């Protein structure tokens, strides 16, 4: 047996400083925008994940180095041939309505419900032969082939375990229980006053002794970014999750007395900002033109000025926080001369290039303007198109752009969050989350396919290194920044960010110093 993890030991080890944690208190967290629903697994919006990560749990959690940690599963084993994953579940877990939680819930949630409703999990489940429950507290996933990233999909947002007794035999998407979510998590749903707040209360029957520590949590819906900053300054809220205030406010808030911040808690997502370049038509169809864009952009300036120093210049399609990253690739520095050279080689005739910004606030608008200025400097004629969220999605889905800003989550592994943007089999109109640029390279396709199912990490690394070298040379998209969204909170709040998804599932361990 390889990778045998005796998680009960781990739990004991983690539980040791328990004496130091204070119980009680209320936490107010900013939530923006208001989520359409809290039904994780059917709705995947970021704010849904932020709130519902306290209500629902998956089998595992991940530390900030992406190592699996126990959650609903107290221990797990992966067989020698990497085909059988066996999970032992905690035995005294109850749903929020008092029903016992068993392996049947896991089999139902994953094999039936999520397979139908969660596109992100569906991709991984294609590698799964069967999911069985030999007894009430054991679940076995039998794979068709080795699938390296599989150990990374047991995260609350990807695979939330939902109650069989409520959903079996119903129309999942229209089940009335979707408005009153029932999970196994450390906090129970209490009330949602639309447009105002969502209130969660402590789950007194939680299976970990003494946990959770907080009595109640209010997620406060505050639609204006400046008001959110004021709310934190005034002490109305205690936590600003990453991205809830504009960048220029971050510095001022962090410098206040008693305020702490951390860039951790985003490792699983590793948000990678990039700009699709239309590989099908227009100037961007030419590789030399795309290289000219890479050399023209001053990404350090963007990081230092527009993002106030947060983040890191992206050098590859894989984030440096994600597994299998390599820096052994071509590096594009800010170099106007090289850009002009490449531009000349591309035979660019001055055709206007349309830049589609991301309609997610001022920062992104300014970023598009900075890019336009950089392009102007090397003689590329460009214009920034005005859009809103729906229009942005539509334009990407219809391939109606030359350069389009976006940022994508990587989910810890290139096979989960990177390959989807470059595989030619993933070119399809109608979705903003596939190979939108229209990049086609059979060699890269073959290597991605092989790397996903290669048996050892070493074999995978070798393939992913080659892939990254090839992609960076082909520049199907312009990689911009590895974005960092600092979480800002009052220093009395302890252990808020301990996992790779940060505040999303962090409240299980969080406590307030009394």
């Amino acid at each position, binding site marked *: 047996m390889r990778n045998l993890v005796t998680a009960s030991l781990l739990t004991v080890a983690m539980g040791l400083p328990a004496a130091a944690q204070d119980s009680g208190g209320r936490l107010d967290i900013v939530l923006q925008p208001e989520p359409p629903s809290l039904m994780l697994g059917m709705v995947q919006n970021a704010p849904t994940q932020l709130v519902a990560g306290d209500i629902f749990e998956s089998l595992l959690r991940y530390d900030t180095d992406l190592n699996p940690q126990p959650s609903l599963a107290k221990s797990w084993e992966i067989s020698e041939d990497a085909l059988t994953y066996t999970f032992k579940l905690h035995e005294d877990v109850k749903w929020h309505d008092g029903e016992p939680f068993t392996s049947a819930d896991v089999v139902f949630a994953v094999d039936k419900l999520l397979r139908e409703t969660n596109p992100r999990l569906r991709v991984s489940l294609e590698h799964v032969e069967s999911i069985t429950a030999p007894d009430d507290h054991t679940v076995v996933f039998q794979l068709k082939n080795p699938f390296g990233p599989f150990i990374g999909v047991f995260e609350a947002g990807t695979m939330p375990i939902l109650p069989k007794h409520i959903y079996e035999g119903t129309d999942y998407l229209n089940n009335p229980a979707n408005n009153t979510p029932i999970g196994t998590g450390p906090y129970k749903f209490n009330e949602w006053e639309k447009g105002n707040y969502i209130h969660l209360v402590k789950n007194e029957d939680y299976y970990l002794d003494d946990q959770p520590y907080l009595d109640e949590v209010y997620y406060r819906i505050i639609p*204006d970014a400046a008001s959110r900053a004021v709310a934190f300054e005034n002490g109305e809220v205690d936590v600003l999750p990453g991205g809830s205030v504009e960048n220029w406010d971050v510095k001022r808030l962090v410098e206040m007395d008693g305020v702490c911040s951390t860039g951790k808690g985003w490792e699983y997502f590793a948000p990678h900002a990039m700009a699709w370049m239309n590989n099908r038509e227009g100037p961007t169809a030419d590789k030399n033109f795309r290289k000219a864009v890479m050399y023209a952009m001053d990404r350090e300036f963007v990081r230092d000025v527009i993002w106030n120093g947060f983040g890191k210049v992206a050098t590859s399609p894989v984030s440096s926080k994600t597994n299998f990253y390599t820096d052994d690739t071509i590096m594009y520095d800010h170099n106007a001369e090289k850009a002009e050279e490449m531009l000349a080689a591309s035979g660019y005739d001055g055709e206007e290039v349309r830049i589609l910004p991301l309609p997610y606030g001022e920062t992104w608008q300014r970023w598009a303007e900075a890019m336009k200025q950089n392009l102007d400097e090397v003689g590329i004629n460009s214009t920034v198109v005005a859009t809103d969220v729906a229009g942005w*999605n539509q334009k990407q889905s219809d391939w109606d752009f030359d350069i389009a800003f976006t940022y994508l989550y990587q989910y810890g592994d290139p096979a989960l969050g990177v390959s989807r943007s470059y595989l030619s089999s993933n070119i399809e109109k109608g979705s903003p989350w596939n190979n939108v640029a229209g990049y086609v390279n059979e060699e890269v396709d073959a290597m991605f396919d092989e790397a996903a199912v290669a048996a050892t990490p070493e074999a995978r690394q070798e393939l992913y290194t080659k892939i990254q070298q090839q992609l960076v040379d082909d520049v199907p998209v312009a990689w911009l920044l590895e974005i960092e969204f600092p979480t800002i909170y009052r220093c009395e709040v302890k252990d808020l960010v301990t996992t790779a998804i940060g505040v999303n599932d962090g409240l299980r361990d969080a406590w307030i110093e009394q």
Partner: protein
Amino acid sequence: MTLAAAIFGRAAKALITLLLIVILNFFLIHAAPGDPAMVMAGEAGAADEQFIQQLREQFGLDQPLYVQFWNYVSGVLQLDLGYSYRQQMPVLDLILDRLPATLLLTLTAFGMSLLLGVVFGMAAAARQGKWGDSAITSMALLFYATPLFWVALMAVVLFSVKLGWFPAFGYGTVGADLSGFEMVLDRLRHLFLPALTLGLFFMAVYLRMTRSSVLEVSQMDFVKTARSKGLTEGTIRRRHILRNALLPVVTLAGLQAGQLVGGAVLTETVFAWPGIGRLMFESLTARDYNTLLGVFLVSAAMVIAFNIITDIVYRLIDPRI
């Protein structure tokens, strides 16, 4: 024509207007790029064809547009505003949930601006050309010309951040579990800044209109007659001047009252006030068709209702009409 007949005639026309508004809105909204399924898929950060198809089926968007149109219009005719699939709630419930907050805010601002506008406008007219008049009109000009958004932010900085007198945003102290008098007081404290922000602009409008209207009416012959009859200045002002000068103000107030439901988007956003304006704006960005159409319908109905009410008020103020 009797009052009842007039109201009946107006109401019949109003219903036809409403129906036309519904039809126009329906097609305008569907002409905007993107649909709710695309927005949901966009927000999800991951989507395949099956996911988007599922959403479209769930939202009823897989049906041809004319079927969707017929379903909607026949629903509205039966007073069923449809279902918000995004928010998983009937649209009528969503709107009724948000309506009290908006009405509280806009009616307060409306009442305040009308009262202060008329009082200050008359005061300014009575002191025409003197420093009191200049002070009042300058203040009005300032509030009239300053963008609402900026006034809101400055009010927050002054009254909330610096002085700490009023909460910066929100509909009440969250989780305080207040009741009775304390709850009313808490609500009023939260109401102050948004109502002030929203009210200042319209106060300036009413003030300027009242002032010029009073000055105009004061020059008229019947005022001279009244004066020569020996009536006191106060009586002339109340019974002769004000009553006539108010007509244009009432017209304007009627127009503004129509916007009570949908007109506070900005204020509701800055002050996190859970009202209809925000619901409308958020539904627009999410392309939540049914909710958006519902809010438009309710707003349109309000505009029409207030137009009718304005007409009635005219008759009360000026029996000649």
